[in-house]
């Protein structure tokens, strides 16, 4: 029987973590979950998927939400918890997959077959990448990176014990700016293969 493999990737904005995740999913021939997780969660409900995209992987606004007996009106928080359940369900089903962000490394902290990766990048290369992809100037790109990273950190730290980007929460942390996207993916492929050998 084929061993289950889960690759949970946390990433800095502009570091290419998403692209590296895609490459790894292709290399290992496994499913790839990013924002498309909503398509699976709300299958056939296009309108709901569209609305939920605005609230996904976002920190909740404490002034617009309240908690009562374990319930909250926060769409961000409810969606986050629904996604965590979805991720756990997928992991429990034995499926192999790559998952980008969504606190997956924390949600699957006790899964021995889950490889937890953090991908960061040098500011200069991240800015260059974001400028190229979104057609922004340097200042705009810097602001975009700052805004997204702050949002990701707040979202992550609300639901996880370890802080976002803290090496303690991951198996391997890598700077994608040193080797570039492709070679970082190759490096991580080797690492995952080595991990696979010792997986149960």
């Amino acid at each position, binding site marked *: 029987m084929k061993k289950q493999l889960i690759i949970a990737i946390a990433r800095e904005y502009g570091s290419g973590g998403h692209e590296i995740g895609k490459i790894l999913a292709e290399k290992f021939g496994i499913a790839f979950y990013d924002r498309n997780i909503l398509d699976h969660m*709300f299958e056939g*409900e296009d309108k*709901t998927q569209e*609305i*939920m995209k605005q609230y996904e992987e976002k920190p909740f606004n*404490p*002034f*617009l*939400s*309240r*908690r*009562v*007996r374990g*319930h*909250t*009106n926060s*769409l961000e928080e*409810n*969606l986050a918890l*629904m996604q965590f359940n979805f991720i756990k369900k997928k992991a429990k089903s034995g499926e192999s997959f790559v998952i980008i962000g969504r606190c997956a490394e924390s949600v699957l902290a006790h899964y021995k077959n889950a490889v937890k990766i953090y991908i960061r990048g040098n500011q200069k290369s991240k800015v260059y990448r974001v400028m190229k992809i979104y057609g922004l100037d340097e200042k705009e790109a810097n602001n975009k990176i700052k805004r997204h990273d702050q949002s990701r950190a707040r979202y992550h730290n609300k639901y996880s014990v370890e802080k976002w980007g803290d090496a303690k929460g991951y198996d391997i942390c890598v700077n994608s700016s040193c080797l570039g996207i492709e070679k970082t993916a190759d490096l991580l492929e080797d690492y995952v293969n080595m991990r696979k050998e010792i997986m149960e």
Partner: protein
Amino acid sequence: MLTIEQIMALLIFVVMFVLIISDKIERQYVTLGAAVLTIVFTFGICMKSPKAIFRALNIQHFNEVSFWISKEGAEATTTGINWETIIFIAGMMIMVEGMGKAGFFKWLCMKIAKLVNYKPIPLLVSFMIMSFCLAMFIDSITVILFLAAVTVELAQLLKLDPIPMILSEIFCANLGGSATMCGDPPNIIIGTSLHYSFKDFIQNTGIIAIISLAVIVIYFLMVYRKELIQEKVTDEDIKAMPEPYEVIHSTKEFVISSAIFFLAVVLLVTHERTGLTVGFIGIIIALLTLVTSGKNAVELVKEVDYKTLVFFMGLFVVVSGLEETGVLKLLAQHIEKLSGGNVIIMVAIIIWVSGIASAVVDNIPFAATMIPVISSLSATSGVDLSILAWALALGTDVGGSATPIGASANVVGTSVAIKNGYIITWGKYCKTSIPATIIVMVISMLMIIVRYCL
């Protein structure tokens, strides 16, 4: 110029409020911490008054006859922990837990849905009325927890959109809570602190709430008319519906819990005649539920929402800090000055300030804080306290309906919907609820003014 103890009490209160809103720390820890600070710094270090500490803890109240038996014309006391409110809420929590476990609420929903033949418009109207009636006696969180869950279930089976029903049920639960003394927590606190009876509430806020319900049913039917007309329930869908009796877990438990609920309603409705306080009724109901539930008694006790009870205790101590230091008297003086002693303006200020504040912050701390304010306002201006009490009750209860965070029922209802994949955003919620809230607030204000002030 504020004194040092007033600054301290105010500072603790403001920090507590901000922390409750920010939701970083669980609210019961916030109020408990604030209560400890009030006792140590405000009463202990600043006021050097052990008597103020005893008044705030209010333990001696258990030893007083007035805790068990209400005396007519008893002096209105508002200082310190309102144990009657806490014991009553705890007792009702135990009873409601027993009813839920027996399948009472689900059975009631399924029975009413069957009675109206699962047709969308009668279903919406009947569930709104049911929500209103249940919330008159049971806390609105429980009412909405069960109603929203059954609504989602029915909607999935009948292929309907549950959001219009859930939003209208939430609104009616809050409205029903305003009708009686035991419906909404602000009313329980107002009633027990100012010694108003169930009958007093029914004759005053109750009448306004019932008239508002009639208007609100028409309003929600008009707002959702398009969706309701488009929705069609087929005979096949109806045939597939489960029978109401199927949801009853145990007939014996069902009969017992229904009988206890009936007794609770009778005791509450007649408490003015019998002289039993709501705190005492809470104890009777809790004991009866526990004795009749046998082995499940421990489980029922464990299910009590202790966090809410602790939240209340801490809150009462912090508010007593404001009261003992005279901060609330200053606030009352400002309101009196602002209104120029005109009772109509006073009513308008209380109802709208309470309503707007309750729409954005938890209405329980707000009501608890405002009770000493209206007492002081009544004492200094000579305005009948009951008029201000009804304005405060309606303002806080109804105002809480305006936004998803205004009242606990709103949070629970939207949460149940979202968890089942039915998205209720702030925009969607407020689009129907803000106009409905304004309609009821205007009705309430006009009725209070016409009935008591002209």
